[in-house]
């Protein structure tokens, strides 16, 4: 195969060749190539197939706006990704690339049959059909539509790479390292501002990389560039990052940057992340994103070999690749003329420059003629030929506003330029306004909402001189606004290429416009006639046009198609472009890997897993764990061969028979201290607190202001002005926040403070008839006999030599203690108690056993037996409300009409007629199981267990007017059978006299 590489040209390393494969075939490129430039150097233009019509497509651009040259890329297991833009992907040794959306091969694709039926698949066709017969939609049509969808194929393995993220703060962030961005960074950097300069490309320079002939400050462009970069590198306050895309511009100058770290490397260092997300907060932002070149819209503008003129210039000057030997140029802007000249200088033979304008600068025409290039002004283009590569161009003279006779011009590439669009994507993310410039026929930045400057081609400037000056001014202004004394430097530029152009809709044609395939959105196969059809069908908003045709919705997000779509839509609508408007730009500027957003949040560090001080012991002793809020808690401790049921039964028996030990450290703890602590507690909780003696505990119930139960827990009074409040595990943070809210904003006069002590204490519960016997020898400083330390007592003392807060409380119905010791001693205490407990056959139990034991006693679990719709009365907790209290949080809501009405669901016990049957939690309860659906449901089972102690199943349920139904038989219809059960008013199934607890 002939090589299109030009020796000694470009910035690639001609001595370092790199092997890669495309569709299994091996090729050679050079270090510094992109996948696209390397393929072009090998004469390969056909790089992809379009989305809908499967048309053969070649590369169009040299940047992130590429719609066609999308490929699957792979480097070993776990490292495949679809839709990689060949124009951005740098070559690396061994890179494997595969073409997409074709079968069986890129050159011969069965899907291309769609192309012949293209006129059936016009915009919006699927809304109009596939509706009959009705049943065919699910079984036939939709599966076909879905199968046709998509470009590349999904990865199928877990990603082998890691991702990183970083916050950063800077005075000035400059996006884009073209001449404007470089000048801005120099101005701000020299002033001493901290500067971050980023560019999406592999190297900084922007347009300068494609324009080596310009002379800046007396130096050839590339020498000037090297010098500018060296100066920036020498400034400690300046950071330059390449391969870094500013993806989104968020509130108050927060800019997200996606930095690609390893995809270009032959081998990545171990531990190096593949990509990093930077979250940069800048005082000032300078956007120097440049301008995007527009294609021209004409029949056959999508054949492989037809590409943007600026891209061809980039391939030539930056990569040393000639995109063709006999290119034809079609343009509406001066810039493409220079591309032609550069190609001619490099030895190509441009066959013609076709300009839609009737007249252009004579300097251009003179030069063209001098180079032997035919000049055709005031022409239109009406077609191309060639199946997998363009062969000729059909050009017509315009006569009286109409295309005249056609002429075919043979060529091996077509370089088109429809003018340039200032790149204002990031600016638009800030909800800043764009303003239509009538003279330039482009959108320019309008009213801004952030501390931002736009510089260079992004502001419609053309020519390196004006761009440099503009950049320097923007950089200096930004530095000054960030508090630095800055002045804009000046630059002198010679051999500058200034120019201008016109903005077009689709080019006039002499063919049936209904048949022409003049593409606007290449990837999504949107043509000019699709836009016109959408308008004909009443899509009068550009947003409707976009959604009806999918114009601009492809992976380039309209970088190439938005403005052409707008021009055609505005023509069809008979409105001026600014009356039609652009669709909204949204992040990310270029498609960005999910992993980059996820950053470190993966696997073990996906989210915090909170562990108690005793967690390690539980793990070593075979515990099964369950996640509860952010914690992991020991669920049960299976012995070899035991399932959950067997383990839980054994644990329950042990606690009831002798003594069980339980890690309760996750319970929330809040220390409420200060002169007005009692007043505060009175206002927060439903219960009365004033008369609670020091050294005593009480069950506390907390409501939301809407009257529904939010949390509960045992609260101990340590002294007149100090309470040890416990909360549910999941509720701890919420309750503390709620308390702080009331304290700080409603009652700032109260002298009370709240301190979270959840993690200060490890909490170990000992429950069972032998609990005191086990604990007593360890306790110093107090007498824990039944008389001296009764149920609901609390005291500070020493346990096993550790300072402790000892509670006599029970969530099991057994004699019980909860020992709080400073967290660092939790494990030691646990181990001592375990050792000493051997004589009582001590048994560690987990949350499941805790749940069974408490259910036997009818104690509720907030969040399981209550669900955010239950009042204290619904839950049978009226006793917990201080009758004499004038007010507490939620009290007023309890008096609302529907809170006191009949028909509320109340918590009751439920005993199945067959004691062996354990109801399913969540099962629904009805009075009449034979009624038709929808059935009238009375409530549901909230807690249900096999009770070893009772030798039968037990359950709690919320049931409409449940307490009035004491003794009633109700039904629980399951898919396979209906279970009957009796309501018992009391939920206390075990030891209702509380003899065990007060032992």
């Amino acid at each position, binding site marked *: 195969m002939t090589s299109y590489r030009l020796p000694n040209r470009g910035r690639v390393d001609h001595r370092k060749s790199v092997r890669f494969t495309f569709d299994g075939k091996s090729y050679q490129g050079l270090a510094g190539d992109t996948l696209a430039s390397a393929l072009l150097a090998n004469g390969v233009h056909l790089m992809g197939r379009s989305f809908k019509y499967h048309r053969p497509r070649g590369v169009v651009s040299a940047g992130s706006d590429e719609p066609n040259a999308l490929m699957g890329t792979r480097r070993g297991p776990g490292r495949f990704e679809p839709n990689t833009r060949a124009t951005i992907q740098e070559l690396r040794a061994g890179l494997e690339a595969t073409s997409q959306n074709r079968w069986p091969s890129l050159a011969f694709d069965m899907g291309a049959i769609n192309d012949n039926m293209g006129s059936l698949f016009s915009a919006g066709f699927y809304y109009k059909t596939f509706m009959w017969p009705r049943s065919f939609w699910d079984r036939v049509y939709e599966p076909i539509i879905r199968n046709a969808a998509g470009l590349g194929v999904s990865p199928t393995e877990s990603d082998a790479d890691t991702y990183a993220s970083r916050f950063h703060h800077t005075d000035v962030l400059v996006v884009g390292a073209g001449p404007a961005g470089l000048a801005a960074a120099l101005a701000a950097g020299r002033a001493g501002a901290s500067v971050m300069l980023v560019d999406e490309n592999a190297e900084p320079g922007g347009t300068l990389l494609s324009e080596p002939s310009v002379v800046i400050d007396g130096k050839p462009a590339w020498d000037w560039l090297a010098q500018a970069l060296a100066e920036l590198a020498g400034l400690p306050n300046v950071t330059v*990052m390449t391969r870094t895309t500013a993806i989104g511009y968020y509130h108050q100058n927060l800019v997200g940057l996606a930095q690609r770290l390893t995809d270009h490397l032959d081998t990545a260092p171990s531990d190096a992340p593949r990509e990093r997300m930077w979250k940069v907060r800048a005082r000032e932002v300078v956007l120097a994103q440049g301008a995007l070149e527009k294609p021209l819209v004409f029949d056959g503008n999508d054949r492989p070999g037809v590409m943007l003129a600026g891209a061809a210039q980039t391939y030539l000057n930056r990569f040393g690749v000639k995109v063709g030997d006999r290119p034809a140029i079609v343009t509406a802007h001066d810039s493409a003329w220079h591309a032609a000249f550069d190609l001619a200088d490099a030895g190509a033979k441009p066959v013609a420059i076709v300009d839609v304008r009737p007249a252009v600068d004579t300097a251009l025409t003179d030069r063209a003629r001098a180079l032997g290039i035919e000049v055709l002004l005031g022409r239109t283009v009406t077609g191309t030929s060639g199946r997998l590569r363009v062969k000729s161009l059909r050009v017509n003279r315009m006569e009286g506003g109409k295309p005249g006779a056609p002429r075919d011009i043979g060529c091996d590439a077509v370089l088109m330029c429809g003018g340039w669009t200032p790149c204002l994507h990031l600016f638009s993310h800030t909800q800043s306004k764009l303003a239509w410039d009538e003279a330039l026929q482009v959108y320019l930045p309008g009213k801004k909402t952030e501390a931002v400057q736009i510089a260079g081609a992004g502001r419609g400037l053309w020519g390196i001189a004006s761009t440099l000056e503009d950049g320097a001014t923007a950089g200096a202004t930004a530095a000054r606004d960030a508090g630095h004394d800055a002045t804009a430097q000046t630059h002198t530029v010679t051999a500058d290429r200034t120019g201008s152009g016109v903005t077009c809709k689709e080019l006039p044609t002499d063919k049936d416009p209904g048949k022409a395939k003049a593409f606007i959105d290449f990837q999504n196969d949107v043509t000019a006639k699709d836009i016109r059809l959408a308008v004909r069908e009443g899509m009068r908003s550009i947003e409707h046009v976009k959604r009806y045709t999918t114009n601009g919705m492809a992976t380039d997000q309209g970088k190439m198609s938005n403005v052409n779509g707008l021009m055609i839509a505005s023509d069809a609508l008979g409105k001026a472009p600014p009356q039609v408007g652009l669709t909204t730009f949204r992040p990310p500027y270029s498609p960005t890997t999910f992993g980059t957003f996820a950053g470190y949040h993966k696997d073990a560090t996906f989210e915090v897993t909170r562990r108690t001080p005793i967690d390690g012991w539980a793990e070593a002793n075979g515990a099964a764990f369950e996640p509860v809020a952010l914690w992991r808690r020991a669920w049960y401790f299976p012995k070899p061969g035991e399932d959950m049921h067997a383990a839980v039964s054994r644990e329950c028996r042990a606690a009831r028979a002798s003594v069980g030990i339980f890690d309760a450290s996750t319970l929330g703890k809040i220390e409420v201290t200060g002169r007005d602590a009692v007043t505060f507690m009175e206002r927060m909780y439903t219960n009365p607190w004033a008369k609670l003696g020091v050294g005593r505990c009480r069950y506390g119930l907390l409501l939301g202001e809407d009257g529904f139960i939010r949390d509960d827990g045992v609260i101990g009074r340590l002294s007149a002005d100090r309470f040890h409040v416990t909360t549910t595990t999941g509720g701890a943070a919420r309750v503390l926040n709620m308390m702080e809210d009331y304290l700080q904003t409603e009652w700032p006069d109260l*002298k009370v403070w709240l301190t979270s002590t959840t993690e200060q204490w490890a909490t170990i519960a000992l429950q069972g008839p032998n609990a005191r016997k086990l604990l007593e020898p360890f306790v110093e400083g107090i007498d824990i006999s039944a008389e001296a330390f009764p149920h609901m007592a609390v005291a500070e003392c020493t346990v096993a030599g550790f300072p402790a807060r000892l509670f006599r409380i029970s969530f099991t119905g057994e004699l019980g203690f909860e020992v709080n010791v400073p967290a660092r001693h939790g494990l030691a205490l646990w181990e001592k108690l375990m050792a000493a407990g051997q004589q009582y056959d001590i048994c560690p139990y987990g949350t499941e056993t805790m749940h069974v034991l408490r259910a036997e006693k009818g104690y509720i679990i907030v969040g399981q037996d209550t669900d955010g719709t239950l009042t204290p009365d619904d839950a049978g907790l009226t006793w917990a409300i201080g009758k004499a209290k004038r007010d507490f949080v939620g009290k007023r809501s309890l008096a609302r009409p529907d809170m006191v009405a009949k028909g509320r669901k109340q918590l009751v016990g439920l005993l199945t007629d067959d004691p062996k049957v354990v109801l399913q939690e969540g099962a629904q309860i009805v009075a009449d199981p034979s009624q038709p659906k929808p059935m009238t449901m009375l409530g549901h089972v909230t807690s249900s267990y096999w009770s070893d102690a009772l030798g039968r199943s037990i359950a709690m349920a919320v049931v409409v007017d449940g307490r009035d139904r004491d003794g009633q038989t109700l039904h629980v219809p399951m898919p396979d059978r209906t279970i009957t059960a009796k309501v018992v008013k009391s939920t206390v199934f075990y030891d209702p006299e509380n003899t065990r607890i007060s032992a």
Partner: protein
Amino acid sequence: MNAMTSTLAAGVTITELAPTTRIALRLADPATVPGLSLPTEVGARSADGSRTALCLGPDEWLIEAPEADRAAVLATLAGISAPHSAVEVSDREITYALEGPAVLDLLATGCPRDLARMPVGSGARTVFDTAQVVLTRETDDRFHLTVWRSFASHVRALLDLAQRELAAGL
């Protein structure tokens, strides 16, 4: 051509510090406390010998002292006559010392604050990843990070990841 000029440099050491005495002190008016100089600006820290008081909020200080001084500190605080709250939280949290030239980069992997602007000798409550932490700047390139015990292993795992990433040099 790879223009990646940045202040990144490898090398941060992460050390878990031995327990100290920590008290969460709350009171309305710091002037009412004899024997303790309490700074009034949020983030400021004062030192009395081996005891330090870091102002975390307008009415909140974190008092730190060596283990051996625990009783003495508690006694001092018990002597405050104005309404106040002193709660020991020595065991609530774990402190890591992070030290090295790249310490700011290390912290920037999880902390959204501009820590370059944090003066040596001051501190703040902030976040690292999703965990609330207290950071103090001990020297230019040494920070102490204090985090609730159950969050510590998560924070530590992230710090270790970041440390390896810094060492990889990209």
